[in-house]
């Protein structure tokens, strides 16, 4: 497992002040993933933006929440958009409870 690599990649996509990494992931997620040392399972989940799988792998939930906004192309500027995003996000992660996220 390389939880650290997943956290690092998701942070670049979801939390950078610079918009470039976000756009690069959206344009070419597989190419973006090539910069990191993922297992096959991690790579699939990251490239596919599969929030539930990433969560179950034990990534930092705080970082995942920001990554999910990009991966889902969510518009969270307005209250309605945020509520809709959070509803879907919680549905994605709920089956997995609270996994350990220590790296």
């Amino acid at each position: 497992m390389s939880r650290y690599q997943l956290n690092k990649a998701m942070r670049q996509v979801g939390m950078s002040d610079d918009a470039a990494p976000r756009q690069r992931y959206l344009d070419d997620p597989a190419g973006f993933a090539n910069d990191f040392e993922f297992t096959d399972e991690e790579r699939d989940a990251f490239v596919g933006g599969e929030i539930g799988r990433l969560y179950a792998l034990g990534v930092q939930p705080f970082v995942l929440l920001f990554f999910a906004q990009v991966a889902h192309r969510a518009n969270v500027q307005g209250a309605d958009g945020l509520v809709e995003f959070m509803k879907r996000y919680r549905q994605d992660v709920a089956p997995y409870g609270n996994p350990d996220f220590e790296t």
Partner: protein
Amino acid sequence: MAKLVSIIGVTHNPMLAGMANAGSNPELARVRDRFGEFRESLRAARPDVLLCVGNDHFNHLFMDNMPAFLVGKSPMAKGTSAWERRIGLPDYTAKVDVELAKKIIRDGFERRTDFAFSDEFIMDHAFTFPLANLRPECDLPIIPIFCNVMAPPIPSTRRFFQVGETLRQIIEDVPGDVRVAALCSGHLSVEIGGPRPANPDREFDHWACDLIGTGKVQEAIDGLTFERFSRAGNYTAGFLTFVMLMGMAGGAPAAFWECMELEKMQTRVPFFHWDLG
């Protein structure tokens, strides 16, 4: 010798960022008014410097180099990050008391506490929120102490208490009539990016605030385990900064403490004040 004159602990919950414009929201108005009282308490303590304890939310520190405790010692401290500013969290800029920051680092080595340090950092809302609300004048030098409360392995409750004790000893060893106030922000039960509600554990919040406020040191050390934090919410270890304050206070009960219940907003808001005048 220098004196620790006041110790204050408050929340940095972003949900409360709009309290200045509480309007018709009576719960936000209660929080705003309590912050106003704390602002006056801090002013009345006449501090010369603010020792600020908080954490970073992966804006500056990450798991490539994660310090347990880090002292910021660049000449100026600034915040917040761009994304936090976009969601309405406040900026803050202050000078850093670099000499006192270095003394904390040097004396820490002699007192079994190896602080990391940074000459280039940003403060996020864990610092800018309490500072902007409690010292909006930005006129006092600060020393930011960053604590890892988000990336396990996280230091234990006992360790947070000890580091608080150490900071008090170091401050009281500073020559001159310097008046130091400690200002800290932290969290009650909180879930971010997990399936539970944002502030899931009302029982934990009231119990944990009572431990700090009434100075139940041993009960806090025994009971506030990482496992208990995790049961209360995935990032509830953010409560540990309040344990550091209890260490600074030597385990004395707070002069004022409160776990303010906001029923409509489904959250609680902690306030702690030790008046050491």
